[in-house]
């Protein structure tokens, strides 16, 4: 089909080949078709699936790991939130719970394991040592794991109780459910994309003491 270009005659309609051949695909067609991205339609159900099947990687480094094990145990039961499967392979994990102090010799190992995890991936910095070095303000310990990997939720405590870790985990679930990208704070995510709901993490009720 030949393309008709506007000549001297003003107001002549521009016709494209596709208008005649495939009306259903044209943007100007009269068909009742809405074009959209599949990811937009699936955003909600994907987030729902993701937040309820977060598989953590085994990454216990110190005494925090004992509390992490208790969290996944029968009494506190992280399985209630869909995170009971601690994976020994980073390739099957979505979440890295950095439980303990990271030495500078461990830092490249931690980063490599993080890089081996498939996207999207999240990080919980559990306890004072992983968050800021804790009592180990010395030459051997990384002063906060956020110097190596982007962190989603920090947990205070030395070590944090299982309730604190569960609170952090539910906060992370809220982030995932709201569609906030990994490693981005809720406020920044809302400022960049107003369609993302503004999460007020401070309003989440603290765990009972």
């Amino acid at each position, binding site marked *: 089909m030949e393309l008709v270009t506007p000549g001297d005659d003003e107001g002549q309609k521009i016709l494209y080949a596709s208008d005649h051949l495939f009306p259903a695909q044209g943007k100007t067609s009269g068909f009742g078709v809405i074009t959209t991205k599949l990811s937009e339609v699936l955003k909600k159900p994907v987030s729902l699936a993701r937040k309820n099947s977060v598989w953590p990687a085994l990454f216990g480094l110190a005494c925090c790991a004992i509390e992490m094990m208790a969290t996944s145990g029968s009494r506190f039961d992280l399985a209630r939130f869909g995170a009971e499967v601690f994976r020994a392979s980073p390739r099957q994990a979505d979440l890295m719970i950095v439980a303990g102090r990271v030495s*500078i*010799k461990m*830092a490249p190992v931690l980063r490599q394991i993080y890089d081996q995890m498939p996207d999207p991936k999240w990080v919980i910095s559990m306890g004072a040592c992983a968050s800021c070095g804790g009592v180990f303000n*010395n*030459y*051997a310990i*990384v002063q906060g794991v956020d*110097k*190596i990997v982007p962190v989603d939720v920090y947990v205070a405590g030395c070590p944090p109780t299982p309730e604190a870790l569960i609170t952090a985990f539910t906060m992370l679930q809220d982030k995932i459910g709201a569609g906030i990208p990994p490693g981005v704070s809720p406020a920044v995510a809302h400022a960049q994309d107003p369609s993302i709901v503004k999460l007020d993490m401070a309003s989440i009720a603290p765990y009972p003491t």
Partner: protein
Amino acid sequence: MSTATISDEMRALSSKFTEAFAENFLGSREDRGELTLWVMPSAWREAAKLLMEAGFNHLSDLTAVDYLDREPRFDVMAILASHKTCTYLRLKTVVDDQQPVDSLTPLWVGANWFEREVWDLFGIHFTDHPGLKRILLPADYTGHPLRKDYPITGPAGSVFR
């Protein structure tokens, strides 16, 4: 229960040791049933060999102490054990910065990693060691952090601070 005094056999060994290393002997100390012998660094391996042949068959520990303001600066010490008599003995020498000590690896292969640790953390060099390289800290680390003049938070501009 250990007794407050050392046995006659140990005392005899102590005097035998004193005679054998007359000019290289620095002193001995008997405290709470524990015997400590000091030798010059030049006699370090020879002294360990004599004690080994006297029945102290096991090298229990080998480490160092940094007395920053003292001259010479470091103590290098080995804790020897006799499995036959169930007794321990402490052998010490004094070295200054950059002064090497003879390796005890020819006598006990177990001295290998102890001496690597002392080299790693104190920077004391051991001659005749089969592979003196860092054991605890990363291979590209600079400095020896258990020295008393090493800054606790690492040198300025350290990574991950």
